[in-house]
């Protein structure tokens, strides 16, 4: 049994080694769990939308709740202009949520506890939002960095600060998800280790802790997916409705 609490995050190859132009493209356990979450999302929504009954079955109800939840979130934070981006935000939310939740199953692997995964998602959102902003407003989008009502002497300083603040978006978006998932899973593993080392006499206290932590982790898994999606909506809102 692995006693190292960081061992659960190791990525290892499954199947043959695939190398393309010097880049390792082998199928790993990370890709496996990404595929599992993508497939389970597909299956859930395929079954949920197959029969469109007026009185919904349980699985149809779940997919309707998902739809309403995201639609409400988008209209609340980004307004009606953001409706065309519904599919993107829906995919993003369900993918992050399923990766987090499948990671909560024992012996599975949490894809979102790797910063490269979350950073890729965040950088993609960042670039997409910037491109959308420039398409919608042209060079007027640069007004985002020049707040009105600032004395001319302070303007260069404020502009640099605003640019740093804008560039920090993908970093904070990715680090938040990655750090929460990794810290939570490490903590679960450490408490699990305490149960083993304290044995039958003293192991009950850490065991109850780890039961409570599992509940907390499920909350965090949902909340982080929600925060990830709602921040995407807020950034989209900044790009679509430019006002400072």
């Amino acid at each position: 049994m692995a006693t190292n609490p960081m061992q659960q995050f190791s990525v290892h190859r499954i199947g043959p080694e695939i190398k393309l132009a010097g880049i390792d493209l082998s199928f790993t356990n990370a890709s496996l769990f990404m595929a599992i979450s993508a497939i389970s999302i597909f299956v859930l929504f395929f079954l949920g939308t197959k029969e469109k009954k007026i009185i919904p079955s349980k699985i149809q109800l779940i997919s309707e709740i998902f739809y309403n939840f995201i639609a409400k979130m988008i209209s609340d934070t980004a307004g009606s202009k953001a409706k065309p981006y519904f599919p993107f935000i829906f995919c993003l939310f369900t993918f992050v949520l399923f990766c987090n939740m499948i990671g909560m199953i024992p012996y599975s692997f949490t894809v979102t506890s790797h910063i490269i995964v979350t950073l890729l998602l965040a950088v993609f959102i960042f670039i997409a939002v910037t491109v959308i902003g420039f398409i919608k407003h042209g060079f007027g989008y640069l007004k985002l960095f020049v707040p009105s009502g600032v004395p001319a002497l302070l303007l260069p300083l404020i502009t640099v600060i605003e640019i740093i603040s804008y560039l920090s978006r993908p970093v904070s978006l990715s680090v938040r998800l990655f750090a929460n998932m990794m810290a939570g899973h490490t903590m679960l593993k450490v408490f699990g280790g305490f149960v083993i080392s304290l044995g039958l006499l003293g192991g009950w206290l850490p065991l109850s802790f780890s039961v409570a932590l599992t509940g907390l982790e499920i909350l965090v898994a949902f909340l982080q997916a929600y925060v990830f999606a709602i921040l995407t909506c807020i950034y989209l809102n900044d790009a679509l409705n430019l006002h400072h």
Partner: protein
Amino acid sequence: MDYFKDFKTRLKIAKSKLKNSSQDESEKNGSFMGFAFKLGTELVAAVIVGTIFGFILDSWFDTKPWFIIIFFFLGSAAGILNVIKTANRMQNKD
């Protein structure tokens, strides 16, 4: 089919209810918790970005410590700005 007869009127009532209803309490708590999680990383991320910016500029112009020092402070200012923006957004939501 008694069920479908008054379906349209019931749909109308449900729609008007949806318009009038505000977010219920538990939903509000959830989003506030989300914002609370946001605040901490927001501060740190801007400092990291500022420092990396300074580091890159330093290695470009070969002025070792100066740009890092300047951009560290600018990054901290940007972090505080981020937190203020988030806090404003939280207050407007009420």
